[in-house]
């Protein structure tokens, strides 16, 4: 299993903060493809979003970052703290 988190506007748009998913995706990109089949809001937030930010295990990641069972993958919009 992998743990997937959604923050800020993504959490609101996708209607969930986190979920457990079977770890059958080799990369973040593959996970995004799979999640985007859930509907238009998923496709817009993840697949078609040029500003999508990704973290794997608390480090900034890219679509080609590898994932494995036990990882924590987070999706969020550009940060605006400070």
């Amino acid at each position, binding site marked *: 299993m992998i743990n997937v988190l959604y923050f800020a506007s993504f959490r609101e748009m996708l209607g969930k903060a986190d979920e457990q998913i079977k770890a059958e995706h080799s990369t973040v990109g593959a996970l995004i493809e799979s999640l985007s089949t859930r509907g238009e809001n998923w496709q817009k937030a993840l697949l078609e979003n040029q500003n999508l930010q990704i973290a794997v295990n608390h480090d900034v990641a890219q679509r080609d970052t590898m994932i494995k069972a036990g990882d924590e993958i*987070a999706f*969020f919009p550009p940060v605006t703290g400070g």
Partner: protein
Amino acid sequence: MSEYPHIKIQQEDFDLTTEVAALRAGHKDIGAVVSFVGTVRDINEGDEVSILELEHYPGMTEKALEKIRLEAHERWALESSLIIHRIGKMYPTDQIVLVAVSSRHRENAFYASHFIMDYLKTNAPFWKKETLPNGDERWVDARITDKEAENRWIK
């Protein structure tokens, strides 16, 4: 003591004098302390703002801030540094964030504090949501100028 004693993520407000005293404690060879405090403005994008809510990504936030802090120590000769970022609901004039840095000579403290703030803005997982006086809520958009400010520090 937490894993990152120089990083604090908290709901409660902070006191500048107290935090700077902690930053300086045990360092006798400090000649300069620069503190940056970010505060809630009552206007953003031309609209009045009633509430500002700060969300963060627990775990990644601390790691990202510590990385920025250590990079500042690598680039400039610093004695000590501290980052406090509040989360939750805040109101106009409230303090949001503190970056405090000490060094022997002033130039290092000025550059390092400015660097930490610029990197925090674009690299630490915090998100702001504003509530307007009519009750409307909106997520604050990232600013291109913040990305430009970060790029200034590329070596």
